[in-house]
């Protein structure tokens, strides 16, 4: 083909590059395409469906009183008991290598050298992972509500919607935190591994040990803040701290303190994680070099 006849090779024209919001939308669109065409989306979908199916079977077969007492206890057990796990899994699947993969796979060279701000790439990817995670969350919610309607009728308690809003905030924070780690490492395995270790081992460990060993409130741990997702699913909001004393002889007691974050406190912890992680993650990605 004669090169001169091609429109491509005609005189250069000035094209107006879209604004950053539009470019964020573009990055989001193609990142979602990535998720929907990759196996990981369907693997997570199967995991989410499997958790829901297991719960459906267990409740239908064993009819546990803790579930079937009232509609509020039902949603507290079903939704409150599993949603944070679904959120963490989604963050690991969709956010764990979102930024580090750009370095490891060298795909970043294809994007970053274009007239687009790095922050637009970062935010676009975050939005895509948020949407993909939201799909999982809504699927899990849909199955929970379907079961709830089956057992208790159409009257869904308002506390569930409060809990859904808090879970959405938690999901944003967890993704923000995951993106921070992902921007810190250039190897996907390490960034995913760090996220897994923190959310599935380190944070729950601190959550459990700190109050019981030294009676201190783990106010700096995001998983502690996320306890508000379950706490709102009570008729009255739980008290902030409860001390239980176990006699160990000779008039001595072993005291265990259990903390439940205040609603404002839980929201503040999640917001703090969201903001600090986003700022740090963006800063690192802006400075990071494709060397």
């Amino acid at each position, binding site marked *: *083909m004669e*090169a*001169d006849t*091609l*429109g*491509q*090779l*005609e*005189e*250069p*024209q*000035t*094209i*107006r*590059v*879209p604004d*950053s919001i*539009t*470019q964020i939308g*573009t990055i989001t*669109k*193609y990142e979602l*395409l*990535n998720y929907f*065409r*990759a196996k990981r989306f369907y693997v997570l979908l199967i995991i989410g469906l499997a958790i829901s199916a297991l719960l459906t079977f267990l409740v239908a077969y064993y009819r546990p009183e803790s579930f079937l007492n009232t509609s509020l206890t039902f949603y507290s057990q079903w939704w409150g008991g599993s949603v944070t796990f679904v959120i963490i899994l989604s963050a690991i699947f969709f956010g764990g290598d979102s930024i580090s993969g750009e370095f490891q*796979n*060298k*795909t*970043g*060279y*294809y*994007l*970053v*050298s*274009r*007239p*687009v*701000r*790095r922050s637009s790439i970062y935010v676009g990817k975050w939005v895509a992972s948020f949407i993909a995670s939201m799909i999982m969350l809504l699927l899990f919610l849909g199955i929970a509500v379907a079961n709830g309607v089956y057992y208790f009728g159409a009257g869904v308690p308002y506390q569930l919607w409060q809990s859904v809003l808090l879970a959405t905030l938690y999901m944003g924070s967890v993704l923000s935190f995951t993106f921070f780690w992902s921007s810190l490492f250039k190897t996907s395995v390490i960034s995913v591994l760090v996220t897994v270790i923190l959310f599935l081992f380190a944070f729950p460990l601190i959550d459990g040990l700190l109050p019981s060993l030294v009676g201190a409130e783990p106010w700096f741990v995001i998983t502690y803040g996320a306890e508000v997702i379950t706490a709102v699913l009570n008729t009255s909001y739980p008290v902030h701290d409860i001390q239980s004393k176990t006699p160990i002889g000779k008039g001595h007691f072993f005291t265990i303190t259990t903390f439940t974050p205040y609603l404002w406190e839980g929201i503040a912890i999640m917001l703090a994680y969201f903001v600090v992680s986003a700022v740090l993650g963006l800063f690192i990605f802006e*400075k990071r*070099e*494709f*060397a």
Partner: protein
Amino acid sequence: MTDSSIEAVDLTKNYGKFTALDGLNLRLEGSKCVGFLGPNGAGKTTTLKIFTDLIKPSRGSALINGLEVHGNKKKALENCSALVETPEIYPYMSAREALNLVADLKGLPKSGRKEVIEEAISEVKMEDWIDAKVGKFSKGMKQRINIASTLIGNPAVIFLDEPTTGLDPRGMAEVREIVKSLKKKDRLIFMSSHLLNEVSDVCDEVALIDHGKLLAYGTMDDVTARFTGEEGLADASFSKPVDQDTLDRYILKLDNVISAERVNGKTVRLKFNGGQAAQGEILADLVALKIGLVEFKTAFSKLEDTYMSLIQEGN
């Protein structure tokens, strides 16, 4: 004539104690193709990465059309395209989608976009694979799509970092033809390479770099003349073998010819005085001799001599 320009001002890049780029000052403007020539590790890719925001300079500035890339990236790269190293394209995308992503980011109008993308794909001879997933492509095929992506949006400034890397000989020749066709229009092309024949074949000007420092910059003739004198070298190829008698009686007696030696049976390397004007006269004389001249071109060994002498001086 375009007024596009790129400029490196005291551009320096350090990696710990290692200096990859050492105070590079270089200004290119107008419509031309400039070869950025140097051995591996000379600082070519580092320079192009700084111009495309893949890395940040330790000191100095990279300007495109007067705009600092690292302070105003989006505006500075607005009318640019770049191919740096061999980027991986998202494997789940088809070639068409990969180019659509670039078109979206650059704000290419939707109307006529399909044709623009198909033309770009056709230019790199990947029409049969346009809807195939990039993940199934070989390295050479991916590089073709990368090259096609630089054509999207009719950029006025194009950065190419060793664009023939990973391509077979036929692909290399095709890419060179694409670059040649691109420079026919008002474009400023800055192409790094360590292949002398590639730069000699494609570029109008050459910037020589080694150890992060600019050694020379100018037109091919200027640079080679500066370092190897005024003598020119050209290869004349004939349809049949040239015997010694023809050499002595006809070719060596042409004006300005200093020496003539057979490179192989059908090709004679001529050394001559008088620059391009004399080269044109020699060509006309050889045609007039009717001894079966089929090709006459500047031998790049002169550039090679310049390159080798500069690199050795640097060491």
